[in-house]
């Protein structure tokens, strides 16, 4: 039953993405060009990568709003190190933010497990703490002096095509990052024991506890995983922009949560898929891209984003109600959920 519902969400979402794409192409033929599509996939790779982490946290029944601060701290420390030492190695730059992300995620995981307080409250606190400390120490200074290989790496493409105007374009290396991490997350959720445990904990925490699962280990893993992805995404973000501004990422957490929820994940936990999340990110990216192509005022972004979140959450709440009505009767459904 649940499986069918999830499939449905993905199909709806795919239909919306297709309809929206057709509409935007009619409005502005530039939309449906390979160039714009590749750009879209490149520019949203940050969003896509962290959304995978948020997906796992949501499946486990938690929520994390602090990953933007984690990504910022991780990329800032990386920026300071590589701009001071000018070590000419992308691999090193890539490896710096990961342990930082995992460490900050581990703090979240421990706090969530130990206090048993709603993770929103915990992660709002750590968001303010991580970000506040970073802004206090860095004083908001931007970093834009990077070693040459760091700059060259951003231009790497998987393959290159020529546009009709003779401008080369192609699939960015960062889109590949996103795809690989998506595949890893998919395998982790579907085929590894830890993945099934995450679904179990999110579906019914008490049942999972009584079944003998180590809840602490699972929650720690989940928050470390989003920390790790935030670290990688921090690297990707720095590469994409060739600049590190401490205030560039914080504030994007809502977009990411919206993407995961649009994709069928639920704040009640226990449901959500990698494919759905990918479509959720794509939908948000298309809406934003479309608003720009249609030259709509930037002020409308928030109105539309807010409406999408409320609408998507309402649909999933309604589906949940229907399911409960089938299982427990109308009265319980109307009053309790």
């Amino acid at each position, binding site marked *: 039953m649940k499986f069918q519902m999830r499939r449905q969400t993905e199909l709806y979402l795919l239909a919306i993405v297709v309809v929206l794409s057709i509409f935007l192409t009619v409005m502005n033929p530039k939309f449906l060009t390979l160039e714009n599509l590749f750009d879209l996939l490149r520019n949203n790779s940050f969003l896509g990568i962290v959304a995978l982490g948020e997906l796992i946290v949501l499946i486990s029944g938690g*929520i994390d709003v602090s990953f933007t601060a984690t990504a910022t701290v991780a990329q800032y420390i990386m920026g300071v190190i590589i701009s001071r030492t000018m070590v000419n190695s992308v691999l090193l730059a890539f490896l710096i933010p990961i342990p930082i992300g995992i460490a900050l995620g581990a703090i979240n995981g421990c*706090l969530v497990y*130990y*206090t*048993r*307080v*709603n993770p*929103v*409250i*915990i992660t*709002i*606190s*750590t*968001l*303010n*703490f991580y*970000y*506040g*400390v970073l*802004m*206090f120490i860095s004083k908001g200074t931007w970093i834009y002096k990077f070693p040459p290989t760091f700059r060259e790496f951003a231009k790497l493409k998987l393959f290159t095509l020529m546009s009709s105007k003779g401008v080369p374009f192609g699939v960015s290396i960062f889109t590949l990052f996103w795809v690989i991490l998506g595949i890893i997350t998919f395998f982790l959720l579907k085929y590894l024991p830890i993945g099934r445990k995450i679904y179990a904990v999110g579906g019914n925490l008490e049942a999972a506890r009584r079944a003998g699962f180590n809840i602490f280990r699972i929650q720690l893993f989940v928050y470390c995983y989003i920390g790790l992805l935030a670290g990688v995404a921090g690297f990707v973000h720095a590469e994409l922009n060739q600049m590190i501004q401490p205030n560039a990422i914080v504030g994007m957490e*809502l977009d990411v*949560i*919206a993407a995961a*929820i649009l994709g069928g994940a639920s*704040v*009640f936990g226990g449901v959500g898929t990698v494919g759905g999340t990918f479509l959720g990110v794509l939908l948000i990216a298309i809406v934003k891209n479309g608003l720009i192509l249609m030259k709509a*005022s930037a*002020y*409308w*972004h*928030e*109105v*539309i*984003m*807010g*409406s*999408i*979140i*409320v609408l998507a*959450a*309402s649909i999933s*709440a*309604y589906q*949940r*109600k229907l399911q409960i009505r089938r299982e427990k009767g109308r009265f319980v459904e*109307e*009053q*309790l*959920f």
Partner: protein
Amino acid sequence: MWKNSSFKVGDIQIMALVFLLAGLLLLMSFLTRGKLLEIQSLQAIAFQLPLLGLLTLAQMGPMVSGGIDLSIIATANLVSIIMALSMTRFFPSLHAPFAILLGLLLSLLLGMVKGFFVALVSVPAIIATLGLMIFIRGVSLVITRGYVIAGFPRDFLFIGNGTVVGIPTSFIIFAAFAIFMYILLSRTRFGLELYLFGSNPVATLFSGVDNRKVVFRTYLLSSFLAGVASCVMASRFNAAQADYGESYLLLTVLACVLGGVSPSGGSGRVLGITVSVIILQVVATGFNLLGFSSHLASALWGIILLGVVLFNRLVFG
């Protein structure tokens, strides 16, 4: 927490808060070399406290019900903007009382929207109010295009900056609403149902309570209080903008948790909230006097909230 011992636990918590307040007052006056206890600082506290206090009262209802309202600041800002437009552009001849009426009506309307999604559609409060927060702030941005609307008539400025027999008007408003909330939560059927719902919705349902009505009213009340807070905020700043006071959101949650509202719902009293609001305002004013940057302050608020949550877990289990 709604067990036999809950009142005792609550009393101990409030006593602990009073001691904490005394300790912080001492520490802060020491750190600021007595500046905190000078008359100007105390006045500043009395003028700044009502805004935080009213917003915290707005956050309290949803948190007691086991939810949270992330959209109170956005609501307050939109209400301020509508009041500002009414006073400066559309109906300048109708003066402040009309604008306030209009603003409070808008806050009730927004409360009905929130109540609709949380109570009737059953969207989890966190997500519903998150989406509505973005939506409402978006509407404010579309209306103002990011600009500040400033320059209100003098009778409106009286709310945030005037005094009545030496007491700031806004402080009197806060005190009145604190008493109102106290009576509503501890002396009425609605209050009892709200606490019951927060601690155990299933048991509440089977005691014959209409859960949906309780939740709907909670968000209506919360929005209305955000509307009242908005009058104080707009008047105090003499301006309205789409993103004023966003740092208050964390502070309201912190004030509730510190004041004894369990984040899972069902407990918390107005007295505890009031003491915790005073504590936070004293600390905030202390931070100001010490010249802390807003970022350092928000980092400290984050760590304090975590500290309180951990402390509660250690002491009260």
